[in-house]
């Protein structure tokens, strides 16, 4: 459903962030990009989101070229990025204001229920904890019912406990939603990648390019403590390691 072909990105200053990235995502798949910071993984995600233009190559969504933000593509950022002047409910509605009011209301209510924030619908962002704020951000993306959801280190600013809970929560939502959305996630947290993904794409930096693609065939739900999981973790770490040695 999403095809990246020969994506390259050179910034105005001459810095080459990405070189020749080719990646194909199946509908309903969860793919994670992992790599050290500065390897260009966030830039790649921003290109798919239509927030940056690639210098070379192109992005196809269902066969159509994607050059600007697209209604079928949702984005969840590292920070919640809520509008501080809007209530939780109005923040969630932010992206579907073009729909009829009744449709907005029912979708918003359903999504708030889904992320467990119904009781906080009228609260302002400043009254929320970090984990709650990020759940609002997730709700805001889900309410538009995107076919492709992009997540840029969505849980990296949260404490480990909240993080684990939200990862499980995201998986539940993904499994319950029909048609199943496709998820493209950026993280530097190997465990997060392994808990969530069908495939883990290991990027190396300067310029960013794909080093390895690992298909994680562990059955879900995955337990972070089981030996197979730990073995996978070692393999991903090794794949990341080769670069660190190279630097």
């Amino acid at each position, binding site marked *: 459903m999403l095809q990246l072909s020969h994506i390259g990105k050179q910034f105005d200053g001459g810095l080459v962030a990405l070189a020749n990235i080719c990646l194909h995502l199946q509908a309903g798949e969860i793919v994670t990009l992992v790599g050290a910071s500065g390897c260009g993984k966030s830039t790649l995600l921003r290109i798919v989101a239509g927030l940056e233009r690639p210098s070379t190559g192109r992005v196809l969504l269902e066969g159509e070229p994607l050059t600007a933000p697209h*209604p079928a593509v949702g984005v969840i950022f590292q920070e919640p990025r809520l509008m501080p002047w809007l209530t939780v409910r109005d923040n969630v509605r932010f992206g579907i204001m073009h729909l009829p009011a009744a449709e907005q209301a029912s979708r918003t209510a359903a999504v708030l229920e889904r992320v467990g924030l119904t*009781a*906080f619908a009228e*609260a*302002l962002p400043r*009254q929320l904890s970090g984990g709650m704020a990020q759940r609002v951000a997730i709700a805001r993306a889900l309410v538009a019912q995107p076919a492709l959801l992009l997540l840029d280190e969505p849980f990296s600013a949260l404490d480990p*406990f909240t993080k684990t809970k939200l990862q499980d929560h995201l998986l539940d939502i993904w499994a319950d939603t029909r048609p199943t959305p496709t998820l493209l996630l950026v993280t530097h947290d190997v465990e997060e990648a392994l808990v969530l993904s069908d495939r883990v794409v290991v990027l190396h930096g300067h310029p960013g390019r794909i080093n390895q693609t690992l298909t994680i065939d562990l059955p879900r739900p995955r337990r972070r403590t089981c030996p197979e999981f730990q073995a996978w973790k070692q393999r991903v770490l090794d794949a990341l390691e080769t670069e660190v040695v190279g630097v």
Partner: protein
Amino acid sequence: MFFMADSLTLTTPLPPAQATNAPRPARRWQWPLGAVLPLLLLGAWEVLARVGALPPNLLPAPTKVLATIGVLARTGELWQHLGITLGRVALGFGLGGALGTVLGALTGYLPLMRRLLDPLLQGLRNIPSLAWVPLFILWMGIYETSKVVLIAVGVFFPVYLGVMSGIQNVDRKLVEVGRVYRLSGLALVRRVFLPATLPAYFVGLRNGLGLGWMFVVAAEIMGANKGLGFLLIDGQMTGRPQTILASILLFAVLGRCTDALLTQLGRRLLRWQDTHGTNAS
């Protein structure tokens, strides 16, 4: 469950019930501590004036100042002066504020306009505004126009700067959220830029209003036969300090009232702010 509160908690999360039906609890009445010093000073002043320690032709007692205001009110003169001065400030504030808002929005939002207009406006800002007085009188005469324009000039710059810097400081990350949801230029302005700029805008408006009051005094001193500023000059010419003090007192009251009005409006619109001030009150 105490560990559920995570590291990003900015304020104590409200229990659900309180967050949903949130009529803010009425603020508890507090003894106005700020009134103590002024009252003490007034009392001392009154006593000193009564016993003759202060020369009555230079510093008359507060009661005498109040009595002057009472006389002015009874003859109806007071309302005329108040009305004229308020009208001038309102007109100048509206004019300067509107122009500052429009130009500030243009230069804040459009880099091209900023490069074109801002150097000129910053240059003009460096001219002490009272230096315009002779020119304005020459151009527009000593009647209403020159006064209102002078006030408008004073109001313009703080408002202009507030709007421009407010827009420039809008969080790029929030603008990006708007872009992700494909908001068009106008919708982006209305739904992201406008609310995000409001705090800086209100600061600009308040500063502008303050300068507006300052400039109305200058405008009325330079030649007027009505208005509170005229009372100042009249009191000086006729050697009646109580009239001067009455006028000063009325300026203080009016300035404070209009500022409070603006602050109230701002507070209502900016309830969402997560700042030291909002959380403390």
